[in-house]
């Protein structure tokens, strides 16, 4: 059976990672996610085979991740926005070399050094690959302590299953909030599926190469299509979205992570006023739940995308709905965390302006 613990978000991810069989962590200090690195330093010192290195840079950390991943072991790194930018070189190599890894981005205000307050400004970077080249990473967007734990386990499983880097996208608020969490039992490392592609010394077999350099254009094209086909399978198999009170809704807020928690409060408030408003919470940002939006668009006429940015996920919602429904946007960038009241106000303004419940 699992184990119930009261932990802050950063610690939840770290504890869940160790329980998921992660024995290797490399990281470089950056606020607001140092608690994760600190937790891993202690946790990995107390499990057999645990390796923790405080690296000299984010670049070094992600490249140590590459090295461990080549040997087939579960490995994680974490950072916050500016540090994730530095890791993007390595993430591109992970994608090109089809290496599994888990990367946590605790987003903060930006661009540049920005601030250390909760933000969702890295959505584009996370969902469009982030580094150079034609690839995607799986992006999971937990919205509660329990989801931090559950999605961390999933992140390692997805990374291994699809041989792809997986990003857990949170923010400083998710990292700091204390919540009770039911942790699953630690996995038995020996129970993990065998990896036939690892580097461990060519003993009794042909030597192997793990690389992303493919000079022949026809072969490079095929490699890109191969990744594309893999992306299609992932899209089919893991796309995940959750909803709140949308069954009779004319209008839905669309939000992920911290924003979805705030939005939930807003939905409760406007429901008290009799407004038929629900909430759609994408849990995988890539793959984005496009199909779901088409279906939801059959009865919801207005979508209000709420992000702690100037508007990034809103483009995916628009793409998913293909112009069939009205898409509105409300954003607070720069580390500002609005209250449910503020979002409720934005909802009611649009609701009455558009006469939403009087339309067919």
């Amino acid at each position, binding site marked *: 059976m699992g184990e119930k613990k009261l932990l802050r978000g950063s610690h939840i991810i770290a504890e869940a990672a160790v329980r998921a069989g992660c024995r290797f962590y490399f990281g470089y200090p950056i606020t607001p996610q140092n608690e994760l690195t600190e937790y891993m330093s202690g946790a990995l010192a107390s499990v057999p085979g645990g390796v923790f290195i405080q690296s000299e840079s984010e670049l070094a*950390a992600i*490249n*140590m991740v590459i090295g461990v991943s080549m040997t087939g*072991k579960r490995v994680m790194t974490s950072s916050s926005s500016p540090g994730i930018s530095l890791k993007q070189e390595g993430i591109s190599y992970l994608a090109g070399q089809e290496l599994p890894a888990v990367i946590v981005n605790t987003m903060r205000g930006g661009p540049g050094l920005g601030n250390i307050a909760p933000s969702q400004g890295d959505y584009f970077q996370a969902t469009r690959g982030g580094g150079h080249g034609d690839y995607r990473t799986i992006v999971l967007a937990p919205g509660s302590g329990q989801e931090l734990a559950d999605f961390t386990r999933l992140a390692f499983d997805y990374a291994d299953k699809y041989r792809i880097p997986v990003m857990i996208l949170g923010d400083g608020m998710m990292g700091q909030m204390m919540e009770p969490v039911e942790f699953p039992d630690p996995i038995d490392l020996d129970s993990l599926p065998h990896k036939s592609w690892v580097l*461990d010394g*060519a003993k009794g077999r042909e030597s192997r190469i793990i690389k992303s350099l493919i000079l022949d254009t026809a072969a490079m094209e095929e490699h890109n299509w191969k990744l594309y086909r893999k992306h299609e399978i992932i899209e089919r198999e893991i796309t995940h979205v959750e909803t709140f009170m949308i069954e009779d809704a004319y209008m839905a807020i669309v939000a992920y992570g911290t924003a979805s928690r705030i939005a939930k409060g807003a939905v409760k408030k406007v429901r008290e006023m009799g407004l038929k408003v629900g909430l759609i919470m994408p849990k995988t940002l890539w793959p984005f739940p496009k199909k779901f939006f088409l279906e939801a668009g059959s009865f919801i006429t207005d979508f209000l995308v709420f992000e702690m940015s100037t508007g990034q996920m809103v483009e995916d919602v628009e793409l998913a709905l293909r112009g069939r429904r009205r898409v509105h946007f409300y954003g607070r960038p720069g580390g500002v965390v609005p209250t449910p009241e503020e979002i409720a106000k934005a909802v009611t303004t649009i609701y009455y302006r558009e006469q939403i419940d009087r339309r067919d």
Partner: protein
Amino acid sequence: MKKVFGRPKSMKAAEFHYCPGCGHSIIHRLIAEVIDELGIQEKIIGVPPAGCAVLAYNYFDVDMGEAPHGRGAAVATGIKRSLPDRIVFSYQGDGDIAAIGTAETIHAANRGELITTIFVNNGVYGMTGGQMAPTTLVGQDSTTTPGGRRLERDGFPIDLSEMLAIAHGSVYIERTSVHSPKHIIHTKKAIKKAFKTQIEGLGFSLVEILSPCPTNWKMSPIKANEFINSTIIKNFPLKVIKDEVGKL
């Protein structure tokens, strides 16, 4: 008939893409011979760089994992920490190790990572067509130092191996050359010692090898080797820079 000379077991039967007179082919062979002699072909993992030697994985018949430009020491660190009983080496050029990858290299050495680095110093960015490297000599021509490297504009060539010797975690660092048979034979000894340093778990080991690049130096192979002998070794003296192997 008795076979007296052949391809090392740790080399694939592949044709080198390297230019005539390039030092990489010689150095590859020396490493493969050492791998054979130490009997570690089945437990060694190599990390090739970005640069001319990126295709090293086509030649070594051992497990190889490609690193992004300059990150060889960090990738090798990850592999070695995961598999402490394997032998791990990075193969890096001067631009890779002494410019873009300086930080990774210094910190791997300072942590005393149990890896071996083969640092091929030919004073030029070869694959990209002959631009100035961190080790290009003052006055030496390159495509980005027309008229020669100028101190006031380009600064000094960097003595990376000497810098690495200061790091407490480095144990064995030697600078050798492959411009003559005598030096080639000695380079092989240094590579062997570096691998043994790792096998014995003593600390970080590195061999810097001065290597000719006739194509980008715009010299004949013979002239290139003469240039190493007459000029480069005056700036990058051949010597054991650090050896604590006996002391540990």
